[in-house]
Structures are given as structure tokens and as C-alpha cells.
């Protein structure tokens, strides 16, 4: 007799537990307002990334096309996997002194792991993280970027 009671108890508890599960899914079915899906490519225009989001490494330039990179090479040293390469040149300053300056700041996006060591180590805050994240291109060579814009020069007062 006891086993028969157990048998039916089992069935009733089993069905009850299943109904509880169905309540959860069913309640979401009738509450479409809780849907969290973002329609990504169509919400692109008003998509705001967090300001610290590490999309790529950029070198901010001001309106006079001036950057803060002195070409010291600390970022290159800090980079764990050779993403950054600095090609420097020697220029003559206005006072007539010879000085090392940046020629090309090469950044290989395809190798970057976004560890943030270059940005953190930069003594003159020349580097920053950009929020752009759509990096897909058809040619791998396009992922090798030059961070200092052509014709740009060092901002005054940055050593």
C-alpha cells in the first residue's frame, strides 16, 4: 500500500515540478517587454560604447594636427607581443638642436591583445583606447596601422 502511495506521490510531485518550470518559460512568453536582444546592425547609429572600452589603440590628435608622442619607445618595450613598432627620425628643432622624433608609430591591430600596457606606460599620455570595434577588413595588410597622422607633429611643451 505504501509503495502505491509513493508511486502516486512521485507522479504528482513530478508533474508539479514540471509545471513550475513551464511557469517560468510561459511567463516570459507573455512578457515580450523583458526581451533584451539588441538589433545590432540597425542600432549602429545610436550605439554608445563605454568610454573605457578597449576597441583599438589610437593616438589622439588635436585640431592643429598635433599629437603628444615623443617617440621614446616605452610602449614598444612594454608591448608583450610586438604589436607596436616605432620608427623614429632625427629632426632639427627650431633652436637648431638635433632631436629624436617620431616618424611612424606602427600599430598591428591583428596582433594586439588589448592588455593596455602601452596606454598605461606612456609617459606623455599620447596613446588612448578608441571605441571603434568593427575591424573586419578583407585585406590583412589593412590591419597594420600608422597611428600618427601624416603631417602631424609633436605638441609644444611635451617632452
Amino acid at each position, binding site marked *: 500500500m505504501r509503495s502505491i502511495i509513493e508511486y502516486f506521490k512521485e507522479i504528482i*510531485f*513530478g508533474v508539479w*515540478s514540471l509545471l513550475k*518550470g513551464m511557469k*517560468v*518559460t510561459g511567463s516570459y512568453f507573455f512578457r515580450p517587454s523583458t526581451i533584451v536582444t539588441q538589433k545590432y546592425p540597425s542600432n549602429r547609429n545610436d550605439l554608445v560604447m563605454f568610454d573605457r572600452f578597449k576597441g583599438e589603440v589610437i593616438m589622439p590628435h588635436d585640431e592643429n594636427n598635433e599629437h603628444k608622442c615623443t617617440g621614446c619607445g616605452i610602449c614598444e618595450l612594454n608591448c608583450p607581443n610586438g604589436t607596436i613598432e616605432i620608427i623614429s627620425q632625427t629632426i632639427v628643432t627650431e633652436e637648431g638642436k638635433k632631436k629624436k622624433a617620431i616618424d611612424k608609430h606602427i600599430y598591428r591591430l591583428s596582433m594586439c591583445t*588589448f*592588455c593596455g600596457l602601452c596606454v*598605461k606606460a606612456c609617459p606623455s599620455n599620447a596613446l588612448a583606447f578608441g571605441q571603434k570595434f568593427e575591424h573586419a577588413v578583407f585585406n590583412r595588410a589593412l590591419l597594420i596601422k600608422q597611428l600618427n597622422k601624416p603631417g602631424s607633429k609633436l605638441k609644444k611643451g611635451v617632452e
Partner: protein
Amino acid sequence: MEEKEITNLTDEHQEYVINMGPQHPSTHGVLRLKVSLKGEIVKSIEPHIGYIHSGIEKMCESITYPQIIHLTDRMDYISAHINNEAVCLNVEKALEIDIPDRIKVIRTIMSELTRIQSHQLWWACFGMDLGGLTCFFYGLRDREKILDIFEETCGGRMIVSYNCPGGLMYDIHPNFQKRVKDFIKYFRKILPEYDQLLTGNVIFHERSKGIGTLTKEDAISFGVTGPTGRASGFSCDVRKHEPYSAYDRVQFKEILFDEGDTFHRYLARIDEMWESMKIIEQLIDNIPEGPFAVKMKPIIKLPEGEYYQRVETARGELGVFVISDGNKNPYRVKFRSPNFSNLSVLNHIAKGFKIADLVAIGGSLDLIIPDIDR
């Protein structure tokens, strides 16, 4: 054509060998299990690993200590923050640096958030392994909220790279506390839904109770740690035994069960989420003021010697063993990864069960393949 001799067939010849993986929906990565079956019963399992071996230990020998951190992110990528913390703690211990309280508290909060999101992902995948596809979406939906917190403060979602020797990369975002509190409030409401959907479900009980039982002795002998080991009664929570960061000042319970089957491995993780939320609640309003990083020398050199740091990741005990010869590069780094030991027990506990149980057991071990291969 002559017929082949079919006499003298041993049991071995009659085994039905299938390859689960490297591409298989339930191995969660490139794990390959060579499974010998007899009917549906699993006779033996032979894990083949190394498909994603990346030589992290070798790479570590040629880079500096701060640079190691971004590699540890990629080991157990679901609990990246805790891996980072292990390396940082090891370096700080070797250099005997005092870490301000603020850093410790923030690290603890982040670690616990990492643990919750890891368990959420595990819950999602475990539900999917058992055929309840809806679990996957609920788990990932809630995990997204933590990833947003990470993204706002650390700039990365999974691969956070937020720690550095001597502190943190940046201070926490001004919204951090509010967002974490919102999340805890939200998740306290949602977690009972997980229970209704899966924990109480009679089919789930049938699928998981008494399946893949691991005894305490075996758990210790196989070095199975984390929730998997604790479900077998092996008290191995590093947070309790060797408190690091701010774990010595918070109240929490080490979840221990004696049964050691799939169901209790599941319960251990669900309960750990509740405990993690408790830890976060104790700390989130009491983040002390102070600097977010200690000033370190530009080139970090560890004194000669051997340093071992244990931390509790979401999957078990992670050990970082550094042998330094006094240079800026370590002489040898060894990561004692929890998944590596947890995998080794699979053959032992899944033998004799059905192939569907193998999937359940594999899911309950919560394996992350890059952590096994390193």
C-alpha cells in the same frame, strides 16, 4: 572475396569506439574524448587534449611579469580576473609590497563577480548539455549584466586585464557601485527562477542524482578542487584556508556536500552564487578610499627564489608557481590549472554510465579547454 575470420573476438574488438570532439556540441571547446561503448554504456574514456595548446608557460619565460598577466587572461578565459589576480599576488608577495585595502576590496569584488558570471555560464551550458536549451539563454542574459559592469570599469568584457602588479590598471568607474548593487538586486530575484526551471525539475533530478559519484578520497587523490571537489566533501576552498585579498574580512560559507554526484556538483555551484552575492554585498558599500595602485619600479625584478600562490578560481585551485633567477623574466612559470586535474578524473567517474550521463558528468565538471592545454 574471402570472408574474414570472425572467431576469437575479445571484448576489446566488440567495443564501439566513438570520438566525442574535437568538434562536438557538448565538449565546450576542442576537447576530444575517445569513448569506448558497449551499447550505450561507457566502458572507458580517454581524453585527448592539446588541440589548443598555446605554450603559455614557455612564452612566460621570455616576457616580463606585467606582461604575463595578459596571457593568463587567455588560460581560463571565463575567470580571467582571478587568474590575473594570482599572478599579481605572487609578484607582490615576492617583492613584499603592502597592498592598500582599497585594491584588495576591489579585487575581491571583481573576483566574486567573475565567479558569478562563470557559474552563470556554466549553468547555461549545463542546462544545454542536458537538453534544456532555454537555460542557455537565461544564463547568458544574466551574465551579460556582469559583463557590462566589467566593460565599463575594465574596458574588456571577458578578457579584462584589470590587475597589474601593485594594484589595478585604472580606478573603478563612478557607476561601478550602483551597477553592482542593481545587479545583486536583480539577480537575487532571478536565481530562484533558475531553481524552478532546472533544480526542482523531476527530469533533471533523474538525470543527475547518483550519476558520476566521486568519493572524497578519490577527489583528493585526483586533486579535484573547486565546487567539483567540495561537492564530494573535500574542503579545498583557498579563500577559507589561505585567505588572500579581502577574503579574511568577509563572512561566507564554504559549500560542502558529501554525496559527490552530478546533482551536488550542480548544487554546490548554485549555492556558491548565493555566497558570492553575500560577499559582494558585504564589501560593495565599504570600499575604502585610497590609491588604486602602488607605485612600482618600471622594471619589476623578483628576488631569486621560488614563489607559489594559490587562488580559488571558479573551477578550483589555481596555482601560480614562479621560479625566479633575479631577472626581469621568470626562469620558469608553472600554472597549476584546476581543469587539468578535474579532467583526469573523468574516466574514473563516468565509467559504467550511459553516454548521456557522460555528457552530464562532463558538464558538471565545468571544463574550460584552454585552461587544460595552456
